[in-house]
C-alpha cells in the first residue's frame, strides 16, 4: 500500500515510461507531497514572541506572563524564582505596588485585568511559608561595592550585584534595613516578616548590612571600587504657617518612623493629617488604629489625590474623614501644644506644571477644627549633604575622588514608588557591573507590545478576577495586623489560568489544529512551520490566542 505511512515521508515523483507501466485502472500510487505548495505563498507566518503590555508597563520589567504561567501550572516556587530575575522584593511589591501592570493588562479590556499583584504576592508567600529562600553564597569577584541606603533601590542594587558575585556592603543610618519599607509603610500593609525574609534572601547572596551607620561624608567610602547612593527622600516639607513649631505638629514620615521603629504613639485624640499622598493615608490609618479620631485635609479633590486608590478607599471604609478643598492657615497653640487648626477653603483653577489643577484660597472662607495633633504629609525631599556638591548626581555615574558614584531611587528619580526604586537599583547594578567588568551588559531590546485587538478573545470565556479577601473593618482598625489576606492557592491557580499569554506561546496547539495545510509541526515545546507546504493563508496567525505568529511579506 504505497499510501500508508506518516505524512512526513519524502514524496517521490512517479514517472511512467511506457504504457505498460500504467496501472490497469487509475489508482493513486504516490502522495501529493510532491506538490511543494509553499510556492503559492506571498505572506510568511513566523513565530515571533512579543512583549505583553503588562510587562511593558511594569517598571521592573517582571516577566509577568512567565510567572503567571508557572502559577497556572501549579509551580508557585518556580514563579517566585522567575520574579526574582527582575525584582528581589515580590512579597513587598505584591502588597504595596500600585500595579501599573494591571492597568495595561489586555484582559482588562475583555472583562477584568489579571490580579497580577495578588499572584505576585502568592508566589512570594509560598516561598516564605515553605521556607524556600536563596542559597547562601560568598562573593567571587575582587571588587567591592558600597551602597548607601537600604531602601528598595539599595536592596535591589545589592541583589543584582550579589547575584553576579560582587562583594557588597550596604550602609544604613537607621537601626534596621529596609528604608521606607521598614519605617514608612505601616505593618498592616506590609508585615515585617515578609520584608525580613526578602532582605535575608539578599543577605544570602553575600551582601552585608551595616545598620546605624549614617554616612556623613562620601569620602568615608574611598576604599570601595564603586558606590551606589540610594538615600531616598526623608526630609518633610514644612507647612509654613504660624504655630507649626508647637508640640503636636509632626512630619508624617517622622510620625510613621517613630511608630514603626519604636512603637512610639505620637497621636493624640484628635488628629488632623495634611496632604493627599501615601504618607498622608498611612499616617491617618495608623493614627486611627492608635485610637484617634482622624481627618485628612487635602487642598484638591479626590481625583487629584496621588495616593493609591485602594488605600484611599480603605481609609474611608475604616472611618477616616477626608476634607477636600481646604488648606491650613495657622495652628492655635494652647499650653504649648496645638489645640485647633485654622483652615481656609480652596477651589481649583487651571492646571499647574504637574497637570493637576492648582488650588486657590477662597477669600473669607476661614474655619476652625479641633486638633491636638497635626501630621504634615506634603511630600519629602532628599538630603544629600554627604556629597561634595548636591546638584549634578543622577542615575548617570560621576567620579568622586577617583571612585565611580552612581545614584538611584527616590533621591534621584523622584518617582516615589517601590517598583521604580527597584528598577533604578537594577539599572545601577548593571551600570556598575559594566564599569567594573569593563564590558557593556547585553540588553535585549523588547519586541513589539501586543495590543488588545490582536488577542484572539474567542479562545477565552468571560470570568471575573478573583480578589484577595480582606479582614472586616471592625476587626482591622483595632490593631496593625495585615488587612489583605492573600489568595488561597487554588484561587490563585484559577486566576493565573485567565491570562491571555499575550505575545508568548503557551503551547495551545491552535496554530497546528487550524492549519489547512498540515504545515505546522510540533516540536517538544515549540513549533515549526514547514515552508515547503505552508500556503500563507494566515489562519494560524489569526487563531493564535496571544498574537505570537506574525505574517511577513514573502520576498520573491
Amino acid at each position, binding site marked *: 500500500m504505497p499510501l500508508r505511512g506518516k505524512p512526513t515521508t519524502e514524496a517521490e515523483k512517479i514517472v511512467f515510461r511506457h504504457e505498460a507501466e500504467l496501472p490497469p485502472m487509475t489508482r493513486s500510487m504516490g502522495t*501529493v507531497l510532491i506538490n511543494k505548495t509553499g510556492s503559492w505563498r506571498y505572506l510568511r507566518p513566523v513565530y515571533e514572541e512579543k512583549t505583553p503590555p503588562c510587562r511593558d508597563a511594569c517598571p521592573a520589567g517582571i516577566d509577568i506572563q512567565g510567572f503567571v504561567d508557572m502559577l497556572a501550572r501549579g509551580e508557585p516556587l518556580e514563579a517566585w524564582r522567575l520574579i526574582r530575575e527582575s525584582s528581589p522584593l515580590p512579597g513587598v511589591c505584591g502588597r504595596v505596588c500600585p500595579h501599573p501592570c494591571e492597568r495595561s493588562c489586555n484582559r482588562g479590556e475583555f472583562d477584568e485585568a489579571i490580579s497580577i499583584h495578588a499572584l505576585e504576592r502568592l508566589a512570594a508567600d509560598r516561598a516564605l511559608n515553605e521556607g524556600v529562600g536563596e542559597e547562601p553564597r560568598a562573593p567571587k569577584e575582587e571588587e567591592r561595592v558600597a551602597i548607601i541606603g537600604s531602601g528598595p533601590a539599595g536592596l535591589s542594587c545589592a541583589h543584582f550585584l550579589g547575584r553576579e558575585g560582587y562583594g557588597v556592603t550596604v550602609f544604613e543610618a537607621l537601626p534596621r534595613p529596609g528604608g521606607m519599607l521598614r519605617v514608612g509603610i505601616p505593618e498592616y500593609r506590609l508585615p515585617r516578616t515578609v520584608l525580613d525574609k526578602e532582605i535575608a534572601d539578599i543577605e544570602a547572596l553575600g551582601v552585608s548590612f551595616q545598620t546605624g551607620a549614617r554616612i556623613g561624608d562620601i569620602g568615608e567610602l574611598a576604599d570601595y571600587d564603586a558606590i551606589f547612593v540610594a538615600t531616598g527622600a526623608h526630609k518633610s516639607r514644612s507647612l509654613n504657617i504660624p504655630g507649626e513649631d508647637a508640640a503636636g505638629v509632626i512630619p508624617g514620615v517622622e510620625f510613621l518612623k517613630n511608630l514603626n521603629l519604636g512603637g512610639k504613639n505620637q497621636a493624640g485624640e484628635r488628629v488632623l493629617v495634611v496632604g493627599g499622598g501615601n504618607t498622608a493615608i498611612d499616617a491617618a490609618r495608623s493614627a486611627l488604629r492608635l485610637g484617634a479620631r482622624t481627618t485628612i485635609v487635602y487642598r484638591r479633590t479626590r481625583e487629584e489625590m496621588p495616593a493609591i486608590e485602594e488605600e484611599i478607599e480603605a481609609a474611608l471604609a475604616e472611618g477616616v474623614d477626608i476634607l477636600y478643598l481646604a488648606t491650613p492657615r495657622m495652628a492655635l497653640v494652647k499650653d504649648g501644644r496645638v489645640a485647633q487648626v485654622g483652615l481656609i477653603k480652596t477651589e481649583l483653577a487651571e492646571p499647574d506644571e504637574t497637570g493637576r489643577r492648582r488650588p486657590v484660597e477662597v477669600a473669607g472662607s476661614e474655619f476652625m477644627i479641633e486638633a491636638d495633633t497635626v501630621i504634615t504629609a506634603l511630600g519629602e525631599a532628599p538630603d544629600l549633604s554627604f556629597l561634595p556638591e548636591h546638584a549634578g548626581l543622577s542615575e548617570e555615574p560621576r567620579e568622586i575622588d577617583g571612585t565611580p558614584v552612581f545614584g538611584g531611587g527616590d533621591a534621584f528619580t523622584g518617582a516615589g514608588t517601590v517598583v521604580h526604586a527597584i528598577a533604578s537599583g537594577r539599572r545601577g547594578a548593571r551600570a556598575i557591573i559594566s564599569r567594573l567588568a569593563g564590558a557593556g551588559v547585553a540588553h535585549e531590546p523588547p519586541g513589539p507590545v501586543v495590543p488588545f485587538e490582536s488577542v484572539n478573545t474567542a479562545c477565552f470565556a468571560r470570568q471575573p478576577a478573583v480578589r484577595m479577601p480582606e479582614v472586616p473593618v471592625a476587626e482591622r482598625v483595632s490593631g496593625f495586623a495585615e488587612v489583605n489576606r492573600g489568595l488561597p492557592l487554588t484561587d490563585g491557580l484559577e486566576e493565573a489560568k485567565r491570562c491571555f499569554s499575550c505575545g508568548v506561546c503557551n503551547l495551545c496547539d491552535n496554530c497546528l489544529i487550524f492549519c489547512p495545510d498540515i504545515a505546522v509541526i510540533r516540536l517538544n515545546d515549540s513549533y515549526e512551520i514547514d515552508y515547503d507546504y505552508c500556503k500563507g*493563508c494566515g489562519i494560524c496567525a489569526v487563531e493564535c490566542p496571544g498574537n505570537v505568529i506574525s505574517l511577513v511579506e514573502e520576498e520573491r
Partner: protein
Amino acid sequence: MSIEIPREEYLFSGHTGCPGCGAVLAMRHVLKGLGDKTVVAIPACCWSIIAGAFPYATLNVPLMHCAFETGAATAAGIKAALEIRGDTETTVLAWAGDGGTFDIGLQALSGAAERNDDIIFICYDNEAYMNTGIQRSSATPWKTWTSTTPANTPKETPKKDIVATMMAHHIPYIATGSVAYPADLIAKVRKAKEIRGTKFIHILIPCPPGWRHPSELTIKIARLAVLSRVFPLYEIEDGNHRVTVEPDDTRVSEYLKLQGRFRHLDETDIEVIQANVDREWSRIECLSA
C-alpha cells in the same frame, strides 16, 4: 468539551485546496475522529480536486471518486461489498459538497437514508458550486451573491433546510458541525461511527474565494456563524435534539460583514436575516428543551 484532538494525520500536505480552505480542515478533523479504518466516497466537488490528481493522493485512507449524483449510493455499495467480504468494522463515509447533497445528490441520499444503509454521509456545505465557479445551489442563503445570482439580483429563495429533510427520513443520527469547533466535530463523528444505520452530518464551510473573504478569516467566520446562531451546533439522536455549543449574543451582522458575498445587503435585509435566525434558533432551542 474537553476532548483531545488526535495527533494522527490522515491528510498529506501538498494538496491543492485554496489557501485557507475550510473544506480541507473539515476532512482533516473528521478523519482524526474516524481513524484509518475508513473508506471515503467523493462525488464531483472541490474535494475531487483537493484529493489529488492521478497518480498522487491527499488522503491516507482509501478514497473512491464517483459521479456527482452518486455519493450516498456509492458509499452504500462499498459498505455492502465490505460486509460481503466479512469486514463489519470499516466505516464508509460519503463526503459531498452542498451540490452533491442538497441538489443532484439528494435522490441517492434519500434512498440510502430510507433504507437506513450503514454509512456516514457528511455534507461539507460551502453554500454554492465552488469547484465550477461559485454557482448558486439550493444551499445558498437568501440574498447571497454568487456568479449566477449577482449582487443586483441576488438569490431570492431561502436556503433549503437539509436537516429537516433528513429528519423526515427518521435516521438514527443527525448533527451539525463547524471547523471552528474541532473537538465538537470529532466527538460527533466518533458517536456517528458507533451508531448503525445512516448518519448525516452537516458542516458549514467558509470558502475564501467563494465567500469573498480573506483566507485568514476562515475559522473566525465559521465561529461567528455558530455564535450568532446562523449555524447552531446541535445533534439529533433518535429524534432528540441537543445543542452542543451554546451561542452568545453575537449579531448576524458580525458574521455577514466579513464576507464580500453579503456586501450589497442593506439594513433591512440584515434585519430580516436576524429575524429569521432568531426564529429558527427558538425552534431548535424549543426542540432541545
